[in-house]
């Protein structure tokens, strides 16, 4: 029904991923990093859905994996935020560049 | 369960050990009771073997065979015959007694019970395996498994010089077992097709020179364990420094592994070499008997005296083995059993006294017979058993040994008889110094033996008395196998 080319969707997801990656690499706030990671995961999900339709696999496969990714994303967020809270409580900061105990 | 009875016997202690590992450190009561229950269950399994074991047959029974490492034709091969059955039974018995002994003793020593009982049960598995393995490779592994827990048990829970004693024990035995390993490999590469299977190896014929060399290698391994005269110096140190229950295991069971090795491997595999070395073994046995006796006489440390008496008594086992005839073998095997029970009991008694007085200096005691009448009675009982009083098991075994050795060499037997006299001397001298005479006021408040300690000793006494009064019950299990062994060695029964 829809008639946009696959390339366009892929380029879109690439851009989304790039934006997410930029955020992950540059945001100081750890929650910000987590949010950015969500973006990247979503970009990957879009790709999964699209690729499933472009190959000979049954189209459900891609969506099933997308569901798995979503579940893992939830896990990431849950554990990540728990770490953030623990970190905040112990060090009074949630800036990634201020936590560098393992520095040389 | 009965189809793999021997495996169950061997590995039940190990299962118990791992159950202990899962328990929290502080659950002292649980740890103790589970350890005790494990030894009891193992003993129960050994008792299960009685109806299954056909005493009148000489071959291996209840055999379990499985390929283990096919590349080298190494098998998991367990089996029991009239030689190993008494030893397995002895192990189960002594383990329970030692475990009961540990209940009081290790608590006194302060903590780390979990590790202690874990190692203890591991040790039991090793000993059981040693007595049941019929594959040389498997045998070697169990042999070494025994070494490691023993090292830690002496090294951690021992007396003031425990590190020295533990290292000495470990190095000594390890050196011996290395020679044995070389011997095992030599046998393996000398067999065609290559195998570690003892039942197959026994039917092969080797050249005399080869036999002699390999026999010597095995001899070193076993001789250190027994211990035979020049290799015995680890024994007093290890016995004295080890905690009481471990001394009991050491003297009661571990020493027998050496002489068991002779009967199980050296003799059937190298009968010609055994005959060639017969005089040497006899001489070493007699030296051990007299030498151990004299040195025991000079001791002022109770435990050391018992330790040296072990050297002397194990000399009788060797003498019986050296006789290489029916009576000698029977005496030797019976002596292995009865020495296990008697010396085990004596070490327990040393422990009882040490726990109360915190000294083992014989000259420091005196007149305890008045304060501790029950203890005195039991100590006298075990001493008499040890010096071979008729009616107790030590007499029957020494008598059979002497009867056997007399048919081999009159001179050696005559000299060994001095050992009997020496045993009476040092044991009675010990009794005189501990129990008789005036009471040293320092000990006027020593309590008599308690029920827990009594429970470790009474079963041993029952066995000593039972065998002494009617030795046929146990000898009937041993004789067919020993006669079979003698036949394979080409001797007349």
């Amino acid at each position, binding site marked *: 029904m829809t008639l946009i080319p696959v390339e366009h969707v892929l380029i879109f997801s690439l851009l989304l991923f790039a934006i997410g990656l930029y955020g992950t690499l540059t945001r100081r706030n750890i929650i910000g990093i987590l949010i950015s990671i969500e973006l990247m995961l979503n970009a990957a999900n879009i790709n999964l859905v699209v690729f499933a339709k472009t190959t000979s696999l049954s189209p*459900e496969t891609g969506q099933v994996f997308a569901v798995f990714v979503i579940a893992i994303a939830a896990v990431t967020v849950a554990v990540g935020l728990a770490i953030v809270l623990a970190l905040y409580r112990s060090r009074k900061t949630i800036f990634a560049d201020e936590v560098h105990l393992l520095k040389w | 369960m009965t189809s793999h009875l021997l495996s169950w016997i061997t590995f039940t202690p190990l299962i118990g050990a791992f159950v202990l590992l899962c328990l929290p450190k502080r659950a002292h009561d649980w740890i103790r009771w589970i350890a005790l229950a494990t030894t009891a269950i193992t003993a129960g399994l050994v008792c299960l073997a009685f109806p299954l074991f056909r005493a009148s047959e000489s071959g291996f029974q209840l055999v379990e065979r499985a390929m283990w490492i096919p590349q080298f034709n190494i098998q998991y091969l367990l089996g029991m015959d009239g030689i190993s059955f008494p030893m397995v039974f002895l192990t189960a018995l002594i383990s329970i007694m030692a475990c009961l002994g540990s209940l009081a003793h290790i608590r006194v020593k302060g903590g780390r019970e979990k590790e202690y009982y874990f190692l203890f049960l591991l040790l039991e598995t090793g000993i059981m395996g040693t007595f049941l393995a019929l594959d040389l490779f498997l045998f070697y592994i169990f042999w070494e498994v025994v070494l490691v827990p023993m090292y830690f048990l002496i090294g951690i829970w021992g007396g003031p010089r425990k590190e020295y004693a533990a290292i000495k024990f470990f190095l000594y035995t390890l050196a011996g077992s290395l020679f044995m390993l070389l011997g095992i490999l030599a046998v393996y590469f000398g067999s065609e097709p290559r195998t570690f299977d003892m039942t197959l190896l026994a039917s092969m014929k080797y050249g005399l020179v080869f036999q002699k060399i390999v026999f010597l290698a095995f001899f070193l391994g076993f001789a250190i364990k027994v211990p035979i005269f020049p290799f015995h110096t680890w024994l007093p140190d290890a016995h004295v420094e080890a905690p009481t229950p471990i001394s009991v295991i050491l003297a009661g069971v571990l020493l027998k592994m050496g002489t068991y090795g002779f009967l199980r491997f050296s003799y059937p595999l190298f009968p010609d070499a055994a005959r060639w070395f017969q005089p040497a073994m006899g001489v070493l046995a007699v030296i051990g008997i007299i030498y151990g006796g004299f040195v025991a006489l000079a001791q002022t440390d109770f435990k050391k005296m018992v330790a040296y008496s072990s050297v002397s008594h194990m000399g009788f086992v060797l003498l019986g083995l050296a006789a290489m005839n029916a009576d000698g073998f029977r005496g030797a095997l019976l002596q292995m059993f009865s020495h296990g029970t008697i010396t085990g009991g004596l070490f327990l008694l040393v422990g009882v006294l040490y726990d109360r007085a915190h000294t083992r200096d014989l000259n420091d005691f005196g007149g305890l017979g008045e304060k501790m009448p029950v203890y005195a009675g039991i100590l006298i009982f075990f001493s008499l058993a040890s010096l071979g009083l008729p009616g107790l098991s030590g007499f029957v075994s020494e008598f059979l040994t002497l009867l056997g050795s007399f048919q081999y060499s009159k001179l050696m037997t005559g000299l060994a008889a001095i050992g009997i006299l020496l045993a009476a001397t040092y044991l009675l001298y010990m009794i005189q110094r501990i129990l008789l005479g005036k009471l040293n006021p320092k000990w006027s408040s020593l309590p008599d033996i308690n029920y827990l300690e009594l429970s470790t000793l009474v079963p041993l006494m029952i066995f000593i008395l039972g065998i002494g009064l009617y030795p046929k019950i146990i000898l009937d299990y041993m004789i067919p196998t020993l006669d079979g062994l003698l036949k394979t060695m080409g001797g007349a029964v």
Partner: protein
Amino acid sequence: MEILTLAAKIGAYALMTGVLLFALGVVALRNLFHSALCLAAALIGIAGLYLFFRADFLAAVQILLYVGAVMTVIIFAIMLTEHLSGKTTIQHNRQSLPAFLGIAALVTVIAKVILQTPWPVTQKALGAHTSVEGIGTALMTVYVFPFEVISVVLIAALIGAVIIAKRENPS
């Protein structure tokens, strides 16, 4: 039909553009709360895209799980640490430039690959319908093992998160 198709097409591109813009917002906004809101918007947009791809179930999951659950949690966390996400503090670190350059290179490379690859599929396929039933069947048959593993991971993460976030006993 033509018009409808065109409208749908335009809608799709608009959706994509919107999502990208919100995504930029997520990354660029100083106020973390705002960027979280942007993320929510972007996620909803992506859910719309799923609908467009005829992945209705996934869209529903996206809305329910992401927007409903995950976003709530994130916003809670933001609020708990609020005073640090104020406007005055610098929200980006010093490696913006190398990051940007690297990402630009990545985009170039991948885009080139995408454009060079001859995608074998007709555009029709993108719109092919997938049934919820099919997904369910796949989850319970072929992918039942990963499914179970995921649930175990979820449980573990749940417990782990609780333990990590729990206030230490003052013992």
